[in-house]
């Protein structure tokens, strides 16, 4: 049977969706507090059971402490919020100035994104990392799609080797992120959902990037794409700055879903089957962490 203290700490940990190091640190502090109080009460003649029960009661609701600790650590600074939104703004800039047509600018942004994502991953995964990580994962998925566009036999051979490897990397990063906080996984996958919504809705060509109609459509919709990424940047800033978890979920879920459904609506239903597959994959990947979070709380 669990002791009063263990039961209390388990309730506390289960209620606190936060970086594991912080959660374990606070739990350890509460544990030393409870132990010390219990020992003091035992010296006054109470039994261990009675003493630990009173110690636990005097600390108050573990769920309330967890909520207050979460709100203390959940709100990022303005600097963190702006740095988190920066990759979305860089992508918006690519489209505003048609820089995406310039291989040097586009490559610079890819290298910068990958570099910052690796740097953040090695520096203890700060909250600003996750949107950058989303863009880091994008080439992994796009390469898989491009491989499928190769001449039939070559395409399948490449895909059979590459796709399992890419899926392994993708799932590994999502799992590592979700272990920190389910919501960070959705924050990371939001740009993937928005990008692939546009990617799929812009044309019906059998070979996405090879189709001239697809490129023309991309150019025609550049302004809406820019607005989408600016909206995503706004949603990211709101997510980082808001304290209550429910507001974070709203700010995280609604903008990307509205953007992706709007992008799909512009296609008027003329999405290639591969496009639907990519869309469903990114929608599933984006929504699953929030659903898991709801299930964990429910």
């Amino acid at each position: 049977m669990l002791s009063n203290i263990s039961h209390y700490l388990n309730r506390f940990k289960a209620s606190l969706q936060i970086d594991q190091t912080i959660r374990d640190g606070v739990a350890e502090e509460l544990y030393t507090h409870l132990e010390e109080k219990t020992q003091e009460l035992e010296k006054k003649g109470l039994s261990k059971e009675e003493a630990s029960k009173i110690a636990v009661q005097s600390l108050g609701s573990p769920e309330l402490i967890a909520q207050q600790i979460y709100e203390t650590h959940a709100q990022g600074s303005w600097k963190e919020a702006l740095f988190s939104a920066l990759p979305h703004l860089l992508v918006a800039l690519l489209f505003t100035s048609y820089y995406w047509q310039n291989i040097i600018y586009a490559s610079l942004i890819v290298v910068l994104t990958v570099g910052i994502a690796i740097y953040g991953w090695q520096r203890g995964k700060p909250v600003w990392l996750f949107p950058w990580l989303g863009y880091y994962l994008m080439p992994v998925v796009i390469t898989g799609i491009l491989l499928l566009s190769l001449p039939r036999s070559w395409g399948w051979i490449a895909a059979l080797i590459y796709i399992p490897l890419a899926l392994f990397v993708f799932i590994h990063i999502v799992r590592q992120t979700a272990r920190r906080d389910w919501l960070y996984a959705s924050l990371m996958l939001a740009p993937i959902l928005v990008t692939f919504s546009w990617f799929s809705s812009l044309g019906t060509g059998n070979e996405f990037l090879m189709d001239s109609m697809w490129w023309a459509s991309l150019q025609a919709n550049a302004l809406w794409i820019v607005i989408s990424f600016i909206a995503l940047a706004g949603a990211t800033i709101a997510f980082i700055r808001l304290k209550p978890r429910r507001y974070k979920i709203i700010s995280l879920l609604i903008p990307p879903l509205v953007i992706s459904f709007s992008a799909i609506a512009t296609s008027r239903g003329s999405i290639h089957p591969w496009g639907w597959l990519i869309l469903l994959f990114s929608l599933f990947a984006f929504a699953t962490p929030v659903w898991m979070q709801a299930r964990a709380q429910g």
Partner: protein
Amino acid sequence: MNYGRELLKGNTDSLLLYLISREPTYGYQIVKELEKRSNGYFQFKEGTLYPALHRLERDNLITGKWQILPNGQQRRYYYITTKGQQVLARRLATWQDFSTAVKSVIQAETT
């Protein structure tokens, strides 16, 4: 809402900063010290102390360090930072001005 509780809520950070400025201390000792110094007037759910300590640490007013005691037990001691000392000095000055002003108003009324 209880007025005393509201007053305590509004001044918790200053009280914690003051106690930590006197000597590095830890959660349970702070609770006991607050109760002792206020003759039992300040009583609250002890768990609410930890979010307050973490808030002060997030704002770089205090810093926490784990220490292992000779008996193997671990405690997280809190130390005031330079920024914390400056903030505390400003708050104490403001509080003293406020307290003097309140006393002056009340004394003027009662004398």
